[in-house]
C-alpha cells in the first residue's frame, strides 16, 4: 500500500515491506543529518502536533524532524489542552487543526483517540500514543534501532521486560515483531503486569510465539533487552501501583552477570528506577542511540506520508 496520505494509527495496518521502505528512507535521512546537508523536502507544509498528554521525546523528535525538512509546526500541548478541556471537544479541536494543517500528529490519554481523529480529519493523522493502546511510531523506531545495531531484525532473541499490561510501546512493538522472524520473543514481568489477554490472543493468531521467562533466564538468551517503566498514570487504582512499584530493576551488575556481551538494552524512555544510570556507560546501553534515531525515523515517516521525495 502506498505511504502517501496514509493514517498511521495502528502498527497492524502496516506490512513488513512498508516498514522496510520506511527504514531505508530513515537511513538516507540519517546520512543527510550526519553530513549536515538535509534536503528541505517539506518546505511549505504545516504540521500540527496535538499533544493532549505530556510528551518530551515524541513531540520534540516530531518537531525536530519537521523543522529539519523545512516544514512549519503548530504545537498544541497538554497545557493548552487543559485550557480547552472546559469547553471544546476533542473532535472539534481536531477539526480546527485539520483546517489549518497538512498533517496532524496526535497524542491522547484515551484509547482510540487517534482513530477517531483519523475518521474526522481530511489530513493524514499520525498516532503519537493513545492511552495504553498504540504507539506505532515508537515501534517503528524500536525496530529501526535494532536494524541499525544488528543489521537485521530477523534471527534475534528478544526479551521484553517490565510493564507489559499498560505499556503501549510493548503491544505495538510485539505487533511489529510479528511481521518479522525473531528466533524467540521472551516476556518477563511481575504477574500483575502481564500482557493483556486480548493482545496475547491477537499476537498468537498472527503466529508470534511468546514465552514467559524469569529476568535471569531471559537475559542469558537475549540479543535485544527491551525495558519499560511501570506506567503509573494508567493504573485504575493507585494502590495497585504501590504493590508493583520497584518490583524489577535492570542494573549493570545484573547485565554483567547474566547477559550476553553483545546484547543491547533498549528503553523507550523516560525511565524511573527500572533501569539504573550505571548501565549508561556500558556497551549494553543503546537507548540513547534509540532516542537519537527518533529524528531520522520520523523525518522519513513525515516525508513518506506527505508524499515528499523520500
Amino acid at each position, binding site marked *: 500500500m502506498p505511504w502517501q496520505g496514509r493514517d498511521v494509527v495502528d502498527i497492524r495496518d502496516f506490512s513488513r515491506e512498508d516498514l522496510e521502505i520506511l527504514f531505508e528512507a530513515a537511513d538516507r535521512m540519517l546520512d543527510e543529518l550526519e553530513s549536515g546537508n538535509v534536503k528541505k523536502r517539506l518546505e511549505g507544509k504545516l504540521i500540527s502536533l496535538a499533544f493532549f498528554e505530556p510528551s518530551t521525546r515524541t513531540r520534540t523528535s516530531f518537531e525536530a524532524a519537521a523543522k529539519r525538512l523545512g516544514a512549519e509546526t503548530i504545537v498544541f500541548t497538554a497545557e493548552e489542552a487543559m485550557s480547552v478541556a472546559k469547553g471544546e*471537544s*476533542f*473532535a472539534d479541536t481536531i477539526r480546527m487543526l485539520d483546517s489549518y494543517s497538512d498533517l496532524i500528529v496526535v497524542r*491522547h*490519554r*484515551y*484509547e*482510540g*483517540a487517534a*482513530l*477517531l481523529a483519523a475518521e474526522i480529519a481530511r489530513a493524514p493523522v499520525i498516532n503519537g500514543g*493513545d*492511552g*495504553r*493502546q498504540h504507539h506505532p511510531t515508537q515501534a517503528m523506531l524500536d525496530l529501526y534501532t535494532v536494524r541499525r545495531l544488528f543489521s537485521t531484525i530477523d534471527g534475534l532473541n528478544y526479551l521484553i521486560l517490565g510493564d507489559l499490561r499498560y505499556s503501549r510501546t510493548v503491544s505495538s512493538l510485539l505487533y511489529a515483531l510479528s511481521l518479522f522472524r525473531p528466533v524467540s520473543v521472551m516476556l518477563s514481568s511481575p504477574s500483575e503486569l502481564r500482557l493483556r489477554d*486480548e*493482545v496475547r490472543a491477537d499476537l498468537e493468531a498472527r503466529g508470534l510465539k511468546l514465552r514467559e521467562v524469569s529476568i535471569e533466564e531471559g537475559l542469558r538468551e537475549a540479543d535485544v533487552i527491551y525495558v519499560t517503566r511501570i506506567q503509573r498514570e*494508567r493504573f*485504575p487504582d493507585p494502590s495497585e501501583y504501590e504493590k508493583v512499584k520497584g518490583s524489577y530493576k535492570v542494573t549493570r551488575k545484573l547485565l554483567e552477570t547474566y547477559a550476553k556481551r553483545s546484547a543491547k538494552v533498549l528503553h523507550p524512555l523516560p525511565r524511573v528506577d527500572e533501569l539504573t544510570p550505571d548501565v549508561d556507560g556500558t556497551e549494553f546501553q543503546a537507548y540513547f542511540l534509540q532516542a537519537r534515531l527518533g529524528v531520522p525515523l520520523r523525518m522519513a515517516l513525515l516525508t513518506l506520508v506527505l508524499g515528499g521525495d523520500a
Partner: protein
Amino acid sequence: MEDDKGEKLLVSKIRDGTVIDHIPAGKALLVLRILNIRGSEGFRVAIVMNADSTRMGRKDIVKLENFYPKFDDITKIALVAPTATINTIRDYEVVQKGQVEVPKLIEGILRCPNPTCISRKSGEPVTSKFILVSRQPLRLRCYYCGSELTEDDVSKQLTGE
C-alpha cells in the same frame, strides 16, 4: 413453531404481532427484558418455556400481540438468543419469517467496558462500535480501543444489571 404440537395446546395463535421462536431454553425472560417489555404496556404477551423442539431439544417462545421489533431490537435479540427466529404475524398468518443474525459491526447499542476508551469520553460526537470476533462463543471487540465483550457482559449490559 408450527411443528410444535405441545406448544399449540398451551397458547393460542395471535392475530397481529410477532412470534419470537427458537429462543434458547430459559432465555425468554431475558429476551423480554432486553426488549424492555414488562407486561404493563397493555398488549398481550405469551411465554412458553422449555417447549419441545425437533431442532433444539428444548426452546422458549415469546408471542407479542401488536408489537413489532425495530432493527436495534432484532440485533439485541441476536446478541442474547442467536438461534431465535422472528415471525411477523398479520391476520393469523406468518407474513415474514427470518433468523436473527449478529451483525459484523454493531453500532450504538453497547457501551465499551473501558472507561478510557474515546467512545466513553463525554462531549464527543462518537458512537460506540463493536466488531464481531466470534459468534460462538460470542466475542465482540471495541473498534476504538480493542476491549472485548463476552456473552455474559452483553447480557448484563442489555438488561441493565
